[in-house]
């Protein structure tokens, strides 16, 4: 306790970060989301050791086997098999790498690129900022999925191209959010005070602006992550992303479209996987946003 000027030593004043964390821990939904997110990350990292079979292994004696809790199910194939006799559980676990893992990568790249442009744009004024503004408005007026689809159309179908396309489509959102946060922050009085004190641009950025960006970054990252998962699977579903044998969840879904009536689980399960992973991301994001907002008030 630094308490040199603190006349009430029994009163521990907590930092905003501690307060936010404290609030977040009390949020049941947020904590469930955090555990779910941790579990999902674990699945992504340890897929080869956790999955019972290889994702492409075909069991010709067990085609279209329903999940183990159904009457015809078999515990060897816990979530059943698809029309080629591949184990659904293994495919879903490996799919976590392709869908969730790639989404994380995409968001990190977009955050870095968008953050840099946003900070530079937000700190500058006049013509340069105005051009950036208009350009961003235009890019943002095209929905990110549409933008991704267009980029895929230019680059050609495939998972790698999809990832590039989605990164390109998400970057403007990050740029926009961070640009707005930085330029809002730059308008505030304490920044003016810093500038009058003779602070250099770097100093203003490092000690004035950056510490106040954390809530923008947190909320934009979780939002971007859920958008990335949804976009990757959507492009996969359209048949423009990961190509069929690969167990990307969206591609699995579009692969199983014809089996809707025959084997509903082949449609339900990948969708459920997408829903749950987006849901845990959103739960964490929502919890963090709430906590940060409450501390700010």
């Amino acid at each position: 306790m630094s308490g040199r000027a603190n006349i009430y030593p029994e009163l521990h004043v907590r930092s905003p970060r501690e307060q936010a964390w404290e609030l977040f821990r009390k949020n049941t939904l947020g904590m469930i989301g955090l555990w779910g997110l941790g579990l999902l990350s674990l699945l992504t990292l340890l897929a080869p050791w956790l999955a019972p079979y290889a994702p492409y292994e075909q069991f010709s004696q067990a085609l279209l086997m329903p999940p183990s809790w159904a009457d015809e199910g078999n515990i060897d194939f816990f979530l059943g098999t698809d029309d080629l006799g591949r184990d659904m559980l293994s495919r879903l676990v490996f799919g976590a790498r392709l869908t969730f893992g790639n989404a994380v990568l995409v968001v990190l790249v977009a955050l870095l690129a968008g953050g840099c442009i946003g900070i530079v744009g937000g700190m500058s004024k006049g013509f340069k900022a105005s051009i950036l503004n208009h350009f961003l408005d235009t890019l943002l007026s095209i929905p990110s999925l549409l933008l991704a689809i267009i980029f895929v159309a230019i680059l050609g179908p495939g998972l790698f191209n999809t990832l590039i396309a989605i990164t390109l489509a998400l970057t403007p959102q990050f740029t926009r959010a961070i640009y707005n946060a930085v330029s809002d922050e730059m308008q505030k009085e304490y920044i003016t005070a810093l500038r009058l004190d003779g602070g250099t641009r770097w100093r203003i950025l490092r000690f004035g602006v950056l510490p106040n960006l954390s809530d923008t970054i947190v909320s934009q990252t979780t939002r971007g992550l859920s958008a990335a998962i949804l976009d990757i699977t959507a492009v996969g579903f359209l048949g423009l992303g990961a190509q069929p044998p690969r167990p990307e969840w969206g591609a699995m879904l579009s692969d199983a479209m014809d089996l809707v009536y025959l084997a509903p689980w082949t449609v339900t399960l990948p969708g459920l996987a997408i829903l749950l992973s987006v849901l845990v991301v959103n739960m964490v994001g929502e919890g963090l946003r709430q906590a940060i907002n409450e501390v700010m008030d």
Partner: protein
Amino acid sequence: MPLLDIRNLTIEIETPQGLVKAVDKFSLTLADGEIRGLVGESGSGKSLVAETIVGIAKDTWRVTADRMYLDNIDLLSLSHKERRRIMGRDIAMVFQEPSSCLDPSERIGAQLEEAIPERSFQGKWWQRWRWHWRRKQATALLHRVGIREPKAVMNAYPYQLSEGVCQKVMIAMAVANQPKLLVADEPTNAMEASNQAQILRLLERVNKLSGTTILLISNDLTTFARLTDNITVMYCGQAVESGTREQILTRPRHPYTAALLQMMPDLDGSLPHKSRLNILPGVIPPLQSLPIGCRLGPRCPKAQKQCVITPPLAKIKGQTYYCHFPLNMPEGKSK
């Protein structure tokens, strides 16, 4: 028969640090037709008291009182809805920062007309269906609060008006239904001196002309002392002293009142050059760590061992105070 009678009002606020007693055993009795000043530094709980009286307490507050009567009506026993109705009929409030208290998306006229109650209608019954009686009355109200161009103001949006005019409009809205009690919470806060004087004069006129009782809340004794009949002083959620204006200004019993009076800088040059201002040592304690006993204790120049026990209510010639060692006591009576 007092108009408003509050005994031992306690307001506790839920905070992340637990329950905090923001107002502790506060008592207030308002006679019909008086102007009462409620003085205290910011954070002393005077706004909480005002908001409790007009019934806009927040969900996180726990309000308890032994007695809370308005004109023989027990406010504590009323249902939420009935209380709302009584508040609308008998009590009005004027806030600080008036421009933020007017709906920004509606013209002043419409808001003023909303505030005019149905029962204030005077005229033939068939005229009631003609909408413009409200408009006429609104114009008259604006005239009464000293606005020269009522028409223009009626058609304006709040952001087009200055703070002073907004406050006049607020007062017009407050007096529209001829309330028995008008609560004014720092009505001249952050206003220029000329506006301040106008608003205070206006409040005085409302009191004199329609006999409205006014509870005038401020953190500054100087500006409105001459307006009031009686003054109550608050410190840290407790009423420390209460009496007539003369009593408080000339013979304060409580050290805090005395300190408040000394704090007003004299401009007659009696303060030597570069000497310290007359202020109490220390700072107002945060609500989480209030001292036990007399809350002024740690800052009081006269504090003694006994001050860790909450002082009882004492009364001399109608002047009440909570202090073990009062000042300015007549000979022979002091301890």
